[in-house]
């Protein structure tokens, strides 16, 4: 079971969180003309990375905030966690 540091609540067990997928995906702006390909890529296409991955988790049984987690998908090492609006360098 992972141990995830919620930027609001501190270290918590994985079972308080739910996984939300790739955090680098950006939703296309509303009312913007985009190609089918761009839209499909937003809806369906995800890289299944081995290694460092920026992902979303929601602290569901805690503060309910969506957070960003830098995690290695192979080793499960968590390098850093960020608030949703935090700029990640």
């Amino acid at each position: 079971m992972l141990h995830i540091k919620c930027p609001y609540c501190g270290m918590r067990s994985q079972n308080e969180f739910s996984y939300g997928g790739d955090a680098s995906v950006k939703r296309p702006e509303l009312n913007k003309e985009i190609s089918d390909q761009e839209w499909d890529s937003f809806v369906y296409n995800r890289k299944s990375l081995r290694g460092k991955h920026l992902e979303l988790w929601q602290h569901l049984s805690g503060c309910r905030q969506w957070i960003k987690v830098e995690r290695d998908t192979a080793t499960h090492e968590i390098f850093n966690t960020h608030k949703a609006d935090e700029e990640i360098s």
Partner: protein
Amino acid sequence: MTQAFRLENGGLINRDKKLSFKFNGKTYYGYEGDTLASALIANGVHLVGRSFKYHRPRGFFGAGVDEPYAIVQLYRNNETEPNVKATEQELFEGLEAKSVNCWPSVNFDIGAINNFLKIFLPAGFYYKTFMWPKSFWYRVYEPFIRKAAGLGVASTKHDKERYEHKYEYFDLLIVGSGPSGLASAYAAAKNGARVILAEDKPRFGGSLLTSDVNIGNQSGEDWANSIIAELKEMPNVVVKNRSQVFGYYDHNMLVMSEKVSDHLPKTKKYHPKQRLWYIRAKEVLISSGSIERPLVFGNNDTPGVMLSSAAKEYLKVYGVLVGKNPLVFTNNDSGYETAIEFKKNGINPIILDSRVNPQSEIINEAINLGINIKFSYVVVAAQGYKKVNSADIAKISDNKKQLGTVENIKCDCICVSGFWTPTIHLASQSGNKTKFKEEIDAFVPGTSKQNETTLGAANGIFTLEETLKDSFTAGQDLSKKITNNDNKISFPNVVEKKSSQHDKFWCVPLPEGKNYKRFLDFQNDVSVSDIEIALKEGYRSIEHVKRYTTLGMATDQGKTSNLNGLQLVSDIENKVVPAVGHTTFRPPYTPISIGAIVGREVGKHSKPTRKSPMHSWHEKNNAVFVDAGVWLRPRYYKQGNETLFEASKREGKNVRTNVGVCDVTTLGKIDIKGPDAAELLNRVYTNAWLKLPVGKARYGVMLREDGIVMDDGTTTRISENHYHMTTTTAQAANVLSHLEYYLQLVWPELNVNVVSTTEQWAGAAIAGPKSRKLLEKLFPNNDVSNEGLPFMGYMESDLFGVKARIFRISFSGELAYEVNVESDNGNFMWEKIIKLGQEFQVQPYGTEALSTLRIEMGHVAGSELDGRTIPYDTSLDGLVSKKKDFIGKRSLNREAFTSEDRQKIVGVVPLDKKTSIPEGSHLVKDAKAPLPNKKLGHISASCWSVEHDNPFSLAILKDGKNMIGEKLFVMSPLKNKVIPVEIVSSHYVDPKGERVRS
């Protein structure tokens, strides 16, 4: 029965407390502190089971967790447990156990015929033989194999025992209470760290209980006892025996199974049988010791052949002799310790040492004691069927290839020692990159991935002094990092005997003309020749060899066999062991009971139960409940001998003719506030929301980004910047997360807050032509006329002093209202409705009638919004705005979603107007078409229409738009039904929707 193999004195058992127990129906006696194994051996019982494949007789091989043979069916307090290791099960008064895997009895086993057919049962036998003809597998081979092979029998009864889970954080978790565990725990505890020390056996001390050493002028055992006593007194230390740490998971979380009551005749009241600990530790010290390796020779599986360390443990801990005429066969000094222990107890052992001329302190001691030692000698084969009665021995050449003349010597047990294998399971599970250590011919932990440190024998360190030094230092250094304390501990004086180098030889060649089975895996009957066959047939990867031969795949997971298997592969392949590599170590280290894994989450505790504030009223009024997600909802209210069908029909009919009331508290409710609330709704729902006036409700549909309908419900504008959203019961939590996702991540600029208020409001749906009349009674001061409170209207009111919200919305399709009050007033509201509704024949209705009413109206619910349908499919496309953008809109113009013959919701009526249609059935054109019959659609929901008094179903049907009036067939192979049906509109009742507006 006398305990003929019990010594007069000695051992750590309590001789004052004699215990009786039964094995295979026969009564024996042992002492408190015995294991089932030690008590059986004390009684001279060495035949405990039959092997898996050849059904060869099985005795005892070890004295603990590594035991491959002595697996029994245990009976305790009217319960039975399969596959209990006799070497781990502590004896209690009245214990009963039976052999497994033998029929009709352990002494006469029909399956042993396999032993004579063994030429037909080589590696991969099952794969090769039972493949053809294919149909034989299910009918002939599998049932036969299952009867012939297999272990104990699981109980089919409900397990009444209690199992608990516990979650703990510690600074240090120390696994194993041998010298390294004790030393590191002591040092860390003295530094003020929070420490847990876990020992899988009942007694603390590990190897100190059986080794002849001296620490700080005390015997090893006394030193262990004094350290444990001191640790137990310290408030920052938890000391646990009978506790096996079996898994090392991510982020330094380990799981430990504590056997709280397995050693007692009966679990004490309010005590668990077992407790599963989830331990998150900052540092983990693995001091799990090592397991002795077998030597491989002919018939080395005969009862009476056992590990020399086990023989020593039976002697020193239990005061039991495994034999009175022992032969010790060793390739290192450990065998000598066992032999010396025999000698000290008046027994004369013979030592066969494969080494040419080893020199060491301990060998000298054995020589001085007058023990008969034969160097360069090996056991060629054990003789005897159910018990060893002699051994064929021979001199072996210095290159270990040639055997001298084989001679036979009498003996009643053969204690083998092939050196030691560090127990690296936990380190490996943690991600540690193990490395091969040439001096000990075994793998040891290498580079750590997590915060884990392996100490002592588990780390391949076999001298006590070095082990203690390392362990004190590790305990001190690691705790210092955490607590910043630095208490120096004076290092005790250690006296131990120095050992000489072990022999790399471990597998005795076959003598000329003999074809003895030489076993590597004692539980799965994998022999040297099996590995040879696998390699000959081209298996190379050790993982493949393992699976093909089943080496190390039995319940003991190869604790005594894996390394010998690896050595054999490397010898044959002419590779070094590290090039062969070892198979993956996976948790659990030992079998864990399912009960412990499940814990308290059984039966109704497997999930929380949510009840509405009106629950007790429902109970008092004969409600029959149904699980709706985690909620318990009334399915129907039983009157007299009514069936579900009769009751729901009555309740539904009453809604259509008079008025009914339904508890709708379970609907998800989300309070939405903020200046941008309307904008959020406009983006989330498919229809327009910006112009909804205050005091009005609107039905909305929300999609996922892929265009699939996520949920539906009404949202009401309470005030300028305040909305009340309802969701379906099932999707409530998901919708809240969905809104939070968009507000926090996608559109953080929207100034909106959302919060669940599902539990804050109790809800009652009042539906039926007389509902307005009832409402007038409930709210005499309000104008609830069609003009005062029109369809989709909303008003706030006062229900006899209680704040209430009235929504004119309808799921049943009748003139209907939903009244919400604060949860605490739910029962008050409900009772008022029932009381004031008497004159209008009000009746409560449950979910069954609720479903019936919505199905015949063609209102969609979860069974249509099933995660596969788009708005068009469920006839909700009228709600899809062409003008504005919203979540998922861009997906709706995908080719499949716009195809002409796209699936659509329809109504289905059986031609005979009598036969009920099973939900989930398929719709087909031709009932007699050959399989696979082309599916045109499926039945999503079925009911007995109360309006038309005949069966009616909803279906999602291909090209549904153009299918109205078609005759098709409903097929349900599960229910063995074929029903001719007609396709009709999904709106079976009041298609124009006049009633809701009346």
